[in-house]
């Protein structure tokens, strides 16, 4: 049937992301600012990882590097069998369109396009014809439960609905990896909860590997694994069973404020 369904069976339980000796520095005027310092991390396929840490700790930078929209100063990032850190810009773009789905804090939907058209955006990059694109986008929207809002414009949707459309857009090309940057940061608790449930479902039912940056302990508690980043260094790497992470996350969060 659909390619979304085909992923369900393709889960192998192997490593999806392998990061070694990752360094990211920014140069502002003459000052060199080290954001990530010799960081290593592996993420298994099918995992749901929460990245936590105080503001300016480099969470978003790490997320961007994994997703291939930023370049490391040194070190390697392997996603699947692709050396993301050394790919050309054009190859990266192509790779992203097939392998990574993005979810942003502010949804970042295109205001002049309908929900359907927003979801169709990444599909325009594929070889699919119009009819196939339509089918795929409808499927993605039905996964997030908004098949009936297809022709609505972003301004006609609530924040939670907008974020669900954004998630539909992220999964439209059926990528293995989803990266989310504060996906609940701009939502009230009820809507945030719905989004988290949806992400859990994408992880368990559709076997999406998810890396999520958040500072919300409640959101982090949904993850299988919690990674804490502080001043460019991975200070903790806690394997946690679902539910166990709650207390841990709360503790970390409390200590960092």
């Amino acid at each position, binding site marked *: 049937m659909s390619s979304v369904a085909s992923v369900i069976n393709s889960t192998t339980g192997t490593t999806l992301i392998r990061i070694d000796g990752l360094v990211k520095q920014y140069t502002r005027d003459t000052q060199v600012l080290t954001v990530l310092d010799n960081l290593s991390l592996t993420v298994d396929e099918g995992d749901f990882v929460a990245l936590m840490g105080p503001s300016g700790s480099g969470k978003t930078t790490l997320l961007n590097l994994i997703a291939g*929209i930023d370049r490391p100063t040194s070190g390697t990032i392997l996603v699947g069998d692709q050396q993301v850190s050394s790919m050309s810009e054009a190859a990266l*773009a192509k790779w992203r369109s097939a392998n990574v789905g993005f979810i942003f804090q502010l949804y970042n939907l295109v205001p002049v396009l309908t929900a359907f058209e927003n979801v169709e955006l990444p599909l325009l990059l594929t070889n699919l014809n119009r009819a196939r694109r339509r089918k795929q986008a409808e499927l993605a929207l039905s996964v997030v439960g908004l098949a009936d809002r297809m022709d609505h414009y972003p301004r006609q949707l609530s924040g939670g609905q907008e974020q669900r459309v954004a998630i539909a857009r992220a999964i439209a090309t059926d990528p293995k990896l989803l990266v989310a940057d504060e996906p609940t940061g701009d939502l009230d608790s009820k809507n945030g909860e719905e989004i988290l449930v949806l992400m859990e479902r994408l992880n368990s039912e559709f076997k999406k590997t998810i890396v999520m940056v958040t500072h919300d302990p409640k959101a982090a508690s949904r993850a299988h694994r919690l990674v804490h980043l502080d001043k460019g260094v991975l200070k903790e790497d806690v394997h946690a069973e679902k539910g166990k992470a709650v207390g841990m996350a709360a503790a970390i969060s409390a200590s960092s404020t």
Partner: protein
Amino acid sequence: MKYLPFVFKNLFRKKTRSLLTLGSILLPLFVICVMGTLLKTLSRDPSEGRGMYRLVVRHKVSLTNFIPEAYRERIFQLGGIQEMSIWCWFGGKYVDYSAKNQFARFGVEPEKFLKVFDEARFIEGTAPDWISDRAGAIVGDALAKKYGWKVGQKITLTGDIYPITLDLTIRGIYTAENASALFFNWTYVEEALPRVKGRIGTFYVKAKSAADVERLPKQIDALFENADPPTKTETEKDFQNGFVSMLGNVKFMLTGICTAIVFVILLIAANTMAMAARERVTEIAVLRTLGYQKSTILGMILGESLLLALFGGVAGLAFFVLTFPGFKAWLMNTPMAGFAAGIKLFPSVLAAGFGVAVFVGLVAGVVPAIRSARRSITDGLRQVG
């Protein structure tokens, strides 16, 4: 092509802005078309589409000096001449000297004239009517339309070069490429002013072949080189260019204005595209995260710019074409009347206008497109708004 609907939606994202930009492309393009039409009219080859030049014989010193009518026989003897007619500028005034009552009035020999000016067609009245009436005149349809003249109507011209008042009756309305003159029988003036007899302004000569056109000017001028007065013979085209040259550097002026206008359109379109691209920094970064290539972003913004300019351009051209008849009629009542009479819609002018639109579209979009494509994704995502 599959990105086209998206590009379209972007184009009309800010409706007020898009409409204002369309307007600010449309109006200057209209001006460019007007300038281009004037330029084209001034540099037009009067023999275009007719394939045969007429020759104009005049006094070597200037048009305001007269040559003897007796030259006719000697010119005819050179051979290769179909027919020739006296062609005398009468000047004078119709109603008053204001610009809106200015038009060309020539005294000719009707029978010969109709053989020389053989592309003229009567749309009202007939040739024999005119030929048989010594005080008859024919007028171009453009003039007849402007003044509402009918066949049989009387027109009074008060002379200034020639101290005589002509009471003419319209015997025909003709149509031709530039039908904006009045022709009457020169005999009328000759009979009223005996001292004028035998001294004429110019001869219009219709040659038999292209070779004759080539040969005759030199031969005619050589014939009268040491005579008094000497002559100057030119093709109708050179004769007309002489008038244009007398106007001074009009071509330079019109071309200068057009160039400046192209820049104005360019600046306005570039401003619109710069504003559009700036507002979409985050959105473009999002598209890039989705896997859109730099080249695709570049193409989409350039495409949007091109579409914007094309919409404005095509609207401008359409506006020009649709308003042209009214515009021309209006221009006939302005100080530009002398230039307006000969204007018409030239495909080459419209093509040039279209070219300007394409040029503006591509150039206006280049900088915003490159900047958008080159901005790093992480920078773009950081930007708020």
